[in-house]
């Protein structure tokens, strides 16, 4: 076994400053190990919320890598920084009032037309989405395709930070999913029925019972709850 592999720590650079951290930590844990405290740029710690966008380079590699700090383990020679927020214009709209007859995506985000299909967004996406493909679908006004291709978007904003055409991809895709859900997706009949039941007061009694329980009784109820296999 080589000396390197036996080494239990890795050398990383946080905003240019060198730290030695235990091997196997995620970037997020390594930052905390090094003394940083997250106030922004952290959320679920499970790869779902998109708050912990990270940019890094590896020593000797020209490539600019992008990932989520909570999902990526540290490597030797990693030069990294966090991007807790991407400035990207989000247009105001009222979903109920939106004119969807033409192409609402292009109407609200005309910068979509600046896309030159360089594919940088797709290469950047930590979710491995086909971002450029859904931008092209957005230009063509295909709401459903944008909604489907962007379904796993977690709004980290890394694509928007890297785009040479300055498109806010994540906001465009979110709008597409909202329009799709509001106007195009088939109605969910069971949901409508359940809402009717709730409005008719069918669950009021059970809910009130819970609300009026003492903390101890509620705790006991929770501990003895039925857990589906």
């Amino acid at each position, binding site marked *: 076994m080589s000396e390197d592999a036996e080494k239990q720590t890795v050398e990383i650079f946080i905003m240019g400053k060198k730290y030695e951290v235990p091997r196997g930590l995620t970037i997020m844990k390594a930052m905390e190990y090094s003394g940083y405290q997250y106030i922004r740029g952290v959320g679920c710690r499970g790869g779902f919320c998109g708050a912990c966008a990270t940019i890094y380079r590896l020593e000797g590699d020209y490539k600019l890598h992008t990932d989520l700090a909570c999902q990526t383990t540290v490597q030797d020679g990693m030069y990294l920084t966090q991007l807790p927020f991407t400035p990207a214009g989000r247009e105001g709209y009222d979903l109920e009032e939106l004119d969807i007859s033409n192409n609402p995506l292009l109407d609200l985000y005309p910068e979509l037309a600046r*896309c*030159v*299909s*360089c*594919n940088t967004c797709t*290469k950047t996406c930590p979710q491995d989405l*086909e971002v*450029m*493909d859904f931008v*092209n679908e957005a*230009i*063509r*006004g*295909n709401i459903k395709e944008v909604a489907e291709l962007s379904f796993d978007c977690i709004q980290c904003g890394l694509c928007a930070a890297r785009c*040479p055409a300055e498109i806010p991809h994540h906001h465009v895709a979110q709008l597409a999913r909202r329009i799709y859900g509001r106007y195009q997706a088939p109605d969910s009949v069971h949901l409508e029925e359940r809402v009717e039941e709730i409005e008719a007061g069918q669950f009021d009694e059970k809910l009130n019972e819970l609300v009026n329980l003492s903390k101890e009784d509620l705790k006991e109820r929770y501990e003895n709850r039925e857990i589906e296999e």
Partner: protein
Amino acid sequence: MREIPYYPGCSLKDTAKGFESSAMAVSRELGIELKEIPRWNCCGTVYSLTDDNLMKQLGPLRNLVRSRDEGYESLYTLCSMCDNTLKRANRLVQEDEEKLNKINNFMDQENDYSGEVEVKHYLELLRDELGWEKVMENVKQPLEGINVAPYYGCMLTRPKEIGLDDPHNPSILGELVKSLGGTPVNFPYETECCGSYNTVDKKEIILGKTQTITAGASKAGADLIITSCPLCHFNLDSRQAELLDIAPNHNPVPVIYFTQMMAVAFAKPEVNEFEEHAIDPRPGLDLEKKVVS
């Protein structure tokens, strides 16, 4: 049925749906299935002449990379602008190895390209691969007595390195008209620019060009104008309708895609979506009546 890889471009999915639907229908009559490539992006619309900015060549070239990755050696277009942009980007990298390398380096983890996909316009398929005889065989309703002005615009024949016909005196659309039993009319504006993107913010330029071109066709006796360019179509059709508001004496000439004309001659006029046109080609021309009778 022979399958050929087809690149639609954005306009054929939006303002020029009748172009695509008619092309699909007439192709089937000719034993051709236009198979849309599964993933494609905008062609770039206008070929970038900026010599040192290769970023704008990525869009058109990626379409060719994706066709090649699907196993295709060629890619067929309908829209004149897509045809022009794809062919010129392809030619750029075929002739300039340094630029090709630079583009491949930038595309990085995508597969390298070497200019190996051949871009062809649908008209080239008709003329060079199927032949006018084959077109003639499928005519069920000859366009007898109909005078057609072939309008090439800029993109189909220029520059000559990628043009599919003589840039000054093209004949390919006229040959198609003849194959369908119609009469091509000579008119002096067949390769005149329609004004292109000035339509966005300098509409008056387009109104002037449209008047010149359509009045020229009308004076030459044309019953209709045919084109293969969605932008020319928009300018000559929609803007011509606006022209009537300010020039009431203008004699409107309908503008249709060449594939729509083929659909009429192949007795499939229902695929044409003529109702989307600003100047309805149906009345006056009696095309449908001819088909019915």
